[in-house]
């Protein structure tokens, strides 16, 4: 394979590329899904191919193909060159990626149990047992359980001399119970460990076993059924809310992770994903949150879904401060955007969805650092509030300011105790006001690196797998209960 990549880079240079890189990627995915006692999906997919990125005449070109052979590589390199030349016809400045970067290393996700060789029969049985436990609860209309595994082998080579091998492994799982009442038109859902199908990390099958799906299945199902007749979440413009760590992880993703992507800030995503309220003049001086809010982008945290050895333009995984004591201090950068803003070297966040898409700036693990509170102490300290748990819907504007989230489960808190369950709990706000209202973050005992395996961005569309460490936190003066 190294002969092929060397040939590709050589052709690119001969045809006039000032810079070129090639990524050869093969990705295996396995999915097992169970629904209402039936194994709905047993599926194994493999996809392989390569993508070539070049700078010619100061402009970028990218081409990719699934046919990994010498002739096709020559065709695709020529295609990338032609595309770059076309890009140069509508150019404002020359692409500048800064000083050369030369890295010759390899990285493998540390795993204890290989999920691809672990018994398929045992996987199916575990999911069927969880499904059965959920369906034992009267009132459950649909029970679902699933696992997903990903193994990606990547070879990166550049004309600067980098040569990097990586193997990334991910394991994910989840269960869902759906309860409905046609008389009232109510549909309620509970998920575990997280919604949107599953929780996922860069770990082996040991991660699945730790989740204890079967043990949690009865509780999840019972909560879905009880929610059908629970009281509606009340409406208020000045509520105190406590978010569980999984909901807070998505809050971080949407209202901090995306607006710190420097390509968005500089306008590259303006027509699609949008721009950002965190404009460059705010760097180092804007109060994003309260003193309790400390956020880092950390591609090195063990198990994080955004953990790797090197990004997809060959930069090492790094830990970057984003919010320090509430002040906005860092962006997610690429080699080119770091140059544009004079930030020095990239902090290594260029990630591509497989072989067929070019790397763009993506979140790694954007983590809210733990605070000092025990969860029980925080609840006991809350006289009047609402605990909200597990995301059900999410929406945020194109500058990442105006958000609204719905959660699967709410609990009224009165006098420091959870008192009654609330359905359709929603909250809405404006990003910096919301984070400035954070007055407590729980400690490392409740801190979890959640996986978000469904982050969409880019044209053509790309799906990224990102991580978000969080512990429950409290926010004051929040608008809740938007549903009529």
């Amino acid at each position, binding site marked *: 394979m190294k002969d092929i990549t060397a040939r590709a880079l050589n052709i690119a240079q001969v045809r006039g590329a000032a810079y070129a890189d090639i990524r050869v990627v093969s990705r295996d995915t396995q999915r097992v*899904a169970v629904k209402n006692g039936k194994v709905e999906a047993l*599926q194994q997919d493999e996809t392989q191919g390569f993508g070539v990125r070049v700078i010619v005449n100061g402009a970028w070109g990218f081409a990719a193909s699934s046919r990994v052979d010498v002739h096709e590589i020559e065709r695709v390199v020529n295609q990338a060159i*032609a595309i770059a030349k076309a890009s140069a*016809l509508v150019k404002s400045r020359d692409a500048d990626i800064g000083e050369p970067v030369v890295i010759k290393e390899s990285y493998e996700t540390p795993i204890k149990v290989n999920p691809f060789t672990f018994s398929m029969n045992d996987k199916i049985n575990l999911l069927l047992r969880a499904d059965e436990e959920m369906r034992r609860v009267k009132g459950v209309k649909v029970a679902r359980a699933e696992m997903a595994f990903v193994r990606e082998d990547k070879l990166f080579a550049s004309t600067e001399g980098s040569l990097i091998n990586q193997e990334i492994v991910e394991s994910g799982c989840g269960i869902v119970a759906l309860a409905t009442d*046609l008389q009232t038109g109510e*549909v309620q859902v509970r998920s575990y460990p997280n919604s949107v199908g599953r929780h996922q990390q860069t770990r082996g099958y040991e991660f699945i076993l730790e989740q204890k799906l079967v043990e949690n299945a009865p509780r999840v199902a019972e909560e879905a059924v009880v929610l059908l007749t629970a009281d509606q979440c009340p409406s208020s413009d000045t509520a105190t809310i406590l978010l569980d760590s999984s909901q807070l992880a998505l809050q971080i993703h949407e209202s901090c992770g995306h607006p710190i992507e420097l390509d968005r800030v500089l306008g590259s995503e303006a027509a699609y994903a949008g721009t950002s309220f965190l404009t460059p003049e705010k760097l180092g001086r804007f109060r994003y949150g309260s003193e309790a809010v400390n956020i880092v982008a950390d591609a090195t945290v063990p198990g994080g879904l955004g953990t790797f050895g090197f990004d997809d333009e060959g930069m090492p995984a790094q830990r970057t401060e984003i919010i320090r004591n509430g002040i906005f201090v860092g962006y997610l950068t690429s080699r080119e955007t770091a140059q544009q803003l004079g930030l020095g070297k990239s902090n290594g966040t260029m990630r591509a969805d497989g072989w067929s898409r070019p790397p763009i700036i993506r979140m790694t693990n954007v983590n809210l650092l733990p605070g000092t509170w025990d969860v029980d102490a925080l609840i006991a300290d809350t006289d009047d509030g609402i605990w909200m748990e597990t995301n059900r819907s999410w929406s945020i504007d194109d500058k990442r300011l*105006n958000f*609204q989230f719905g959660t699967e489960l709410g609990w009224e808190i009165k006098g420091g105790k959870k008192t009654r369950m609330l359905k359709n709990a929603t909250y809405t706000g404006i990003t910096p006001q919301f984070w400035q209202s954070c007055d407590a973050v729980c400690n490392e005992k409740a801190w979890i690196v959640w996986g978000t395996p469904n982050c969409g961005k880019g044209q053509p569309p790309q799906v990224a797998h990102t991580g978000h460490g969080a512990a429950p936190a409290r926010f004051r003066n929040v608008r809740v209960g*938007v*549903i009529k």
Partner: protein
Amino acid sequence: MLGENKIREITDQVLALSKADQTEVIVGATESALTRFANSYIHQNVAETDTQVRVRVVYGKKIGVASSNDLSPDALKRTVDTARAIAQLQREDPEFQSLPAPQTIQRVEAFVEPTASFTPEQRAHVVGVLCKKAKAQKVVAAGAFSTTTQEVAVANSLGVFAYHPGTYADISTVMMTDTGSGYASFTHQDVRQVNAEALANEAIDKAVRASNPIALEPGEYTVLLEEYAVLDLLNFLAMTGFSAQAMQEDRSFMKGKLGEKVMDDRVTIWDDGCAPNAIPLPFDFEGVPRQKVTFVENGIARGVVYDTPTAQREGRQSTGHSLPAPNSMGPYAMHVFMAPGDTPKRELIKTVERGIWVTRFWYTRVVHPMKVLITGMTRDGTFLIENGQVTKPLKNFRFTTSYLDALNDVRAISRETKLFYNDWGSASRVAPALVVDGFRFTGVTA
């Protein structure tokens, strides 16, 4: 482009390799290119060639699925072997009866050679027109322009062989001033229909008029929804309501309502995968011909789409709306049309004394599926309408409203419709513009 003969070679090869009781193979071949621009220049420019082969094998009532994009004989054999190994570990599916038998499939012409052979230079020329016009008007251009050739084939061991080649061009742009933005997009099978000047003018005009917006109190308003916004209504109705699986799981608003009035009597919505003027695909991913399915006819709920499993559950025939196996999502309406009305689009505004013009929605999500209660933002051109005229640009709103209620409170429907294609769901939609009452805005970005 592989062509029908080469793809038939692949499907024959896979079917010959499989010793299963029944075997299905889906081949999807794509050649696509996309030129992206921002800050009025091209910043990303890509092309992709891929062919995926998906194999479903059936042993008795045990089913396994595997896929690969490696077309070598060894890889095809490995894919068949993987599917077989998976099937052997599978539990029996008591509901499974058979893969579909061959049926007559209508050929629909959807391949346009100039779209398939469009070059990077040609794309750059079109984008250049947009960027030049933007600079001349002192606005900033961003957007994407793609051309795609897709071939889809489905074959099975019962004799099904269905093949469809198609092309489409899709271009969208956001034009921006310091304080406002405007949007325009266009989709067609034939790239020669793209009119860069007209597209630029639409978005630039809107961006300029949207500058220096004021905040208006949230509340219930009459809204004029452009086709870009109505597209979102159709997407969510298809996702939450128009599927037999959603009906069977008691989470569709259509449940128990067939034959009853569910929308305004001027609303008619249907699915038609064979309509030649859209982005057709005349068969589904089981090789079953797509039937035209009417969801709502003059406001009356009429039906939903079925794939083979959901149809067999009710003892009826699939309507040809299956997604590739294994499919957790159920049948899906990929080609949704909403009937036009009788009001010219330019006249719609005259029906509004006080209301809000919405160009498009953004980041919309389901809050409550049975009510089709959706939250999202307005984007790229929101205006106050007073006495039948646009009077002021508005800051973007958050809305939390029922799309079902919106289609019950229709005041007017435009005579014109617009075609859309969505990469994420491989779905095409044809939508008119609407005026609806009682649209609920729940917040505004100050």
